[in-house]
C-alpha cells in the first residue's frame, strides 16, 4: 500500500512536471531550440503572479486571466527579439543566447524579489484533499494533473491537425523548404514560443500554489523539463507527458526508499532510459 501511495503521489507530481515539460516539448522537441532560460521564465511568471495576487482582486482565476497573456507576450517577444536571430540548423547560438538570458533573468529577479521563497496565498484548494480507500490525495495536485492532461491533449491535437501545427512541423523539419511552401518561419516560430511560454504561465501559478518559489529555482525546473522531453522522445507531446510521469513516479518512489534519495532517483531513471533507449519512449521518426 505504501508503494501504491508512492506511485499515486508520483503521478500527481508528474502532472506538475508535465506542465513544465510541455513548452519544452514544443521548443526543444519539435523546434529544436534549446532554451536554457525555460525554468527562469517560469519562475519569473510565478513571482509576477505572487506580486499580482497582492493587488489583484478575484482570486486564482483572475490570476490565470492576467498571467497567461503576459506569458504569451513574453514568449512572443523572446522569439522575435532573441531566438529568431539565432535560429538555424546549429543549436549552439540559441543555447548561448538563452544561457545569457537565464543568468540575466536570475539576477533581475534577485534584484526585484530578493532571495526569499514566496508562494501564492492558500485559498483553501492547496490544503483540500480527499480519500480514496486508504489513500489521501490532495485536490490541488489532482487539478494540476487534469490541467496537464488537457494541455497535452490540446497541444498534441493542435500540432497534428491544424494549419499552424502542420506549418510548425514543416518549418522544424526544413525551414527553407517551409518558406518555399509559403510558410513564414519566423512568424510561426514566434507563435509557437508564445504558446510554450503561455503554458509556463499556468505552470508558474500552479508551482507557486503548490509550494514555494525563489529566484534561483529555475535551473532545477529546466532539468526536469529537459529530462521529461528526452525520456518521452523528441517531437512527441504525449511522450513528454509520459516522461514527466516517469520522472514524478521515480522521485516519489525514491523518496520512500530514502528521504534524501528522491531527486537523485529521478535523475538515475533518466540516465537509465537514456542508456537503454536513447531516442526516448515515444520517439517519432523524423
Amino acid at each position: 500500500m505504501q508503494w501504491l501511495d508512492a506511485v499515486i503521489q508520483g503521478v500527481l507530481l508528474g502532472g506538475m512536471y508535465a506542465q513544465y515539460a510541455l513548452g519544452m516539448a514544443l521548443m526543444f522537441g519539435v523546434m529544436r531550440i534549446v532554451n536554457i532560460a525555460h525554468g527562469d521564465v517560469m519562475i519569473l511568471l510565478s513571482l509576477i503572479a505572487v506580486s499580482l495576487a497582492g493587488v489583484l482582486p478575484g482570486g486564482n482565476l483572475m490570476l490565470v486571466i492576467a498571467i497567461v497573456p503576459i506569458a504569451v507576450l513574453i514568449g512572443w517577444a523572446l522569439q522575435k527579439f532573441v531566438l529568431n536571430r539565432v535560429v538555424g540548423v546549429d543549436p549552439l547560438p540559441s543555447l548561448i543566447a538563452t544561457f545569457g538570458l537565464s543568468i540575466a533573468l536570475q539576477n533581475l529577479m534577485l534584484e526585484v524579489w530578493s532571495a526569499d521563497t514566496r508562494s501564492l496565498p492558500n485559498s483553501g484548494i492547496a490544503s483540500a484533499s480527499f480519500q480514496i480507500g486508504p489513500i489521501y490525495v490532495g485536490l490541488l495536485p489532482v487539478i494540476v494533473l487534469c490541467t496537464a492532461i488537457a494541455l497535452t491533449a490540446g497541444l498534441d491535437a493542435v500540432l497534428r491537425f491544424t494549419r499552424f501545427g502542420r506549418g510548425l512541423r514543416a518549418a522544424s523539419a526544413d525551414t527553407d523548404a517551409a518558406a518555399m511552401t509559403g510558410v513564414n518561419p519566423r512568424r510561426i516560430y514566434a507563435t509557437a514560443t508564445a504558446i510554450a511560454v503561455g503554458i509556463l504561465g499556468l505552470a508558474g501559478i500552479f508551482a507557486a500554489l503548490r509550494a514555494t518559489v525563489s529566484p534561483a529555482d529555475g535551473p532545477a525546473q529546466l532539468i526536469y523539463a529537459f529530462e521529461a522531453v528526452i525520456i518521452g522522445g523528441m517531437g512527441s507531446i504525449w511522450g513528454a507527458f509520459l516522461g514527466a510521469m516517469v520522472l514524478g513516479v521515480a522521485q516519489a518512489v525514491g523518496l520512500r526508499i530514502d528521504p534524501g534519495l528522491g531527486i537523485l532517483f529521478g535523475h538515475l531513471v533518466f540516465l537509465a532510459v537514456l542508456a537503454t533507449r536513447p531516442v526516448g519512449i515515444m520517439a517519432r521518426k523524423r
Partner: protein
Amino acid sequence: MSEPILSTHGLVGGYGDFQALYGIDLHLNAGEVISLIGANGAGKSTFLKSIFGMLPVARDMVRYRGTPIGGTPTHELVKRGIAMVPEGRRLFLGMTVEENMRVAIDNAAIPESRGQWNRERLFDLFPILRDKRRQPVEALSGGQQQMVAISRALLCQPQVLLCDEISLGLAPKVIREIYAVLPDISAAGTAIVLVEQDVTLAQEATSRLYCLLEGRVTLTGNSRDLSREAIAAAYFGGSHAVA
C-alpha cells in the same frame, strides 16, 4: 510578344564574399517552358535561389509581372505566384504525403477549391500518390518523393514554377513519367524554368534554353535550333563559347 512574366537583369550574386553569378539576363514568358543547363557548379541552383529570395540580390535585378521583386522574402513570393521544386526534393520528413501537400494548400494565396491544382487532380496525375497519401514521405521511393515535391509546389498555385534537377538520381522510366506531366502543367498556364543537366532531356522538353558556365550565360536560343556542337562548347567552355 508581351512583357515577360519573370526576368532577370544583370543579376549578380553568390554566397558572402564568393561571387557565383556574373550578370545573368534571362526572361520567361507567361506559360512558356524554358531550360537552364550547365555543368556542376555552373550556378544554376544559385540562380534559382537568387530569384526566389533565398540569397541577397538587388531589388531591380529580378522583375515579376512588371514589378521589381529582388530580395523579397521567399514565403511572400510564394503568395505572389512563384513556387519551386528544390534540388534534393527537401520534403518535410516525419510528415505524410498528404500533410506535405497540405502545408502548401494552407499557405497558398488561392484556396484549393478555386485554384488550378487540387489534390484530386494531382492524384490523377500521379496515381501512386493516392495510395501512399497516408504514408510518411520517407517511406517513398526517390521518384515518388519527387512527385510529392512537384505536387507540393503546384499546390502553391504558381504562375511560375522553378524546377531544380527533377530528374536527378531517378531511373529513366521514372524520369519519362515525371517529364510527361510538364505539358499538363504549362497547359494549366504555369510557366516553367527547368534546371537540367541532361541536355537532350532539356532540349526535348522546352522551347528555349539557356546555358550557364561559371556564372555566365554562354548560349541561349530555341532549344531545337541549337546544334550539339554549339551546346557542347557553351556547356564545357573553350574557344567556341560565346556570350
